[in-house]
């Protein structure tokens, strides 16, 4: 049945690579990346006060911020765009009846679509970065090293995981929806929940549990000058907030991707990858859990669903 899987993958790739939607997302990514890079560059140039940024730190911050910020929005969009119509559109157009009338196991249909989505996501993210990074470097006049480029390439991994997490959720919605528009609404609702509602909810709960911050006057011109009581309040606030955000694929992505660009203060060298992973493995696990759980559920529901339309 491997050949059937390959046939579905090829068809999915062909279909998506011909679609305007796919290429529109890549163009959107490049434009957002450039805009973000410009905005971060603008903000850093105006950075005054006691903290002095070296040319190298500025370059790293500018690139990492551009990548992470842009991906945080575009990767879920890419995942949703590929997933919401995966099964629902076949049902809507009636192609599913011709497809399932073939000697093919339903697992192969889902697996073929997932495999094609992985390829399309890696291709879209890789291509977008390959286009946007040199443009950003040239336009902003950044001083980029081979190490920076390696980290940028590695940042494709968390971005792919984030896109796949949303793809898996959208696929699950698609498997269970009669219409692709319904699956799209559900997928976007999930994204709104994780991107906007969950952070608000987390802040609200932390605030509810801890009460308002202690009122005290202080004059902070350097970090660490905040009174102990206030620092403790914010640290507890952050703890509650991050516990809630632990289930957010968006937050896990940001945490993992930012960790890749962590630099040691004195040497300005990147933190080793082993260190990054040993500190942030939970981020990867949460993202992988979303992918595994929703793809498994999609399998179960699709295999057992009766195509009555």
């Amino acid at each position, binding site marked *: 049945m491997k050949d059937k899987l390959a046939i579905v993958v090829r068809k999915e790739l062909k279909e998506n690579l011909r679609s305007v939607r796919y290429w529109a997302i890549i163009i959107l990514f490049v434009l957002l990346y450039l805009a973000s890079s410009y905005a971060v560059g603008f903000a850093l140039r105006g950075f005054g006060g006691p903290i002095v940024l070296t040319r190298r730190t500025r370059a790293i911050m500018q690139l990492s911020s551009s990548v992470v910020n842009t991906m945080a929005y575009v990767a879920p969009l890419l995942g949703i765009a590929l997933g919401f119509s995966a099964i629902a559109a076949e049902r809507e157009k009636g192609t599913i009846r011709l497809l399932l009338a073939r*000697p*093919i196991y339903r697992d192969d249909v889902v697996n073929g679509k997932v495999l094609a989505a992985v390829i399309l996501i890696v291709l879209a993210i890789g291509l977008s970065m390959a286009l946007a990074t040199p443009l950003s470097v040239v336009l902003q006049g950044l001083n980029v090293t081979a190490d920076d480029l390696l980290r940028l390439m590695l940042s494709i991994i968390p971005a792919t995981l984030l896109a796949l997490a949303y793809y898996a959720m959208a696929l699950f919605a698609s498997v269970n929806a009669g219409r692709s528009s319904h699956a799209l609404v559900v997928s976007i609702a999930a994204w709104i929940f994780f991107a906007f509602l969950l952070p608000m909810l987390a802040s609200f709960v932390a605030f509810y549990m801890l009460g308002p911050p202690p009122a005290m006057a202080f004059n902070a011109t350097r970090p660490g000058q905040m009174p102990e009581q206030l620092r403790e309040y914010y640290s507890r606030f952050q703890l509650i907030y991050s516990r809630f955000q632990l289930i957010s694929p968006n937050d896990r992505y940001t945490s993992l991707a930012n960790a890749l660009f962590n630099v040691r203060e004195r040497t300005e060298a990147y933190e080793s990858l082993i260190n990054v992973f040993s500190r942030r493995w939970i981020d990867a696990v949460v993202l992988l859990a979303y992918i595994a759980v929703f793809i498994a559920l999609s399998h179960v529901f699709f295999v057992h669903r009766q195509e009555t339309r």
Partner: protein
Amino acid sequence: MAEYVIETEGLVKIYRDRSGEVKALDGVDIRVPKGVVFGLFGPNGSGKTTLISILVGLQLPTSGTARVLGFDCVRESVEIRKRLGLLPENYGFYEHMTAYENLEFLGRLDGISKNELKRRILEVLEMVGLSEWANAKVKGFSRGMTQRLALAQALLKDPLLLVLDEPTLGLDPQGTAMFRDLVERVVKSGKTVLISTHLLHEIGHICTHAALIRRGKLVAHGSLDELSKPYIEARGFLYEIAAPGEVERLLHEVKQLDGILEVSLVNEKVRVRAKRDIGGELARLAGRFRVRSLSFLPPSWDELYQYYQGGGWE
């Protein structure tokens, strides 16, 4: 190979939703012999499409069993689909792909080798009259052209059993005629065809066997001869004589025969309905009056359906 290509026993399908439950199939037992054109007749919503969906594994029965080509519909549906060609009622093609590309994709899934597939695609496109449109995108196809393409995809793997759900829907008279020829060709090659339709007048006459279905229940089931017997016993034998010059004298003689129920003259043709088989006597009269033709008119599927279900379509 089983004696019957399709066998169902006590097949029940119940759809449940918030508003309650609907029994789409209620204990259906049918047997489709090999090498026939079998009609599944019934009005819209009678359960025909549900039955077909169960036969090909798109849906599961609530209870009962179904075997197609000797394979169980629940446990061995992939084996069935290797040997069965389906034209579903509600279907669609990948519109941005050409007719050829659509068939290529579906044919590959059918397991047809690359070289064989190319030959088969051209062959089936020729059969359904779409050769010129092979490289046109399906997006621009009319309803009739799409229906022809749907027929082509069902024929692609040269199936042992061809299942066609409302196959003439959207076809013009020329398309319907093409479809009838095609079915005859398929049956001549030893294959079996199951046709589900509510348009009995269009394709009913090409069926040699049928199951009449109403509200999920089987009303009658068998060959045309088997189903005609009770009808003829109740309504009588119907003959048609192409009238000669001396039609008045012929009418007079026919009326004298024993068991005559009704005699009428329609468009220079004498129609005789009798309680018993008067074929021999009519043949003798036909010889004396030198009539152009004499034929026995079996009941149409339409008449049989109305007879068995006690009324017309609902």
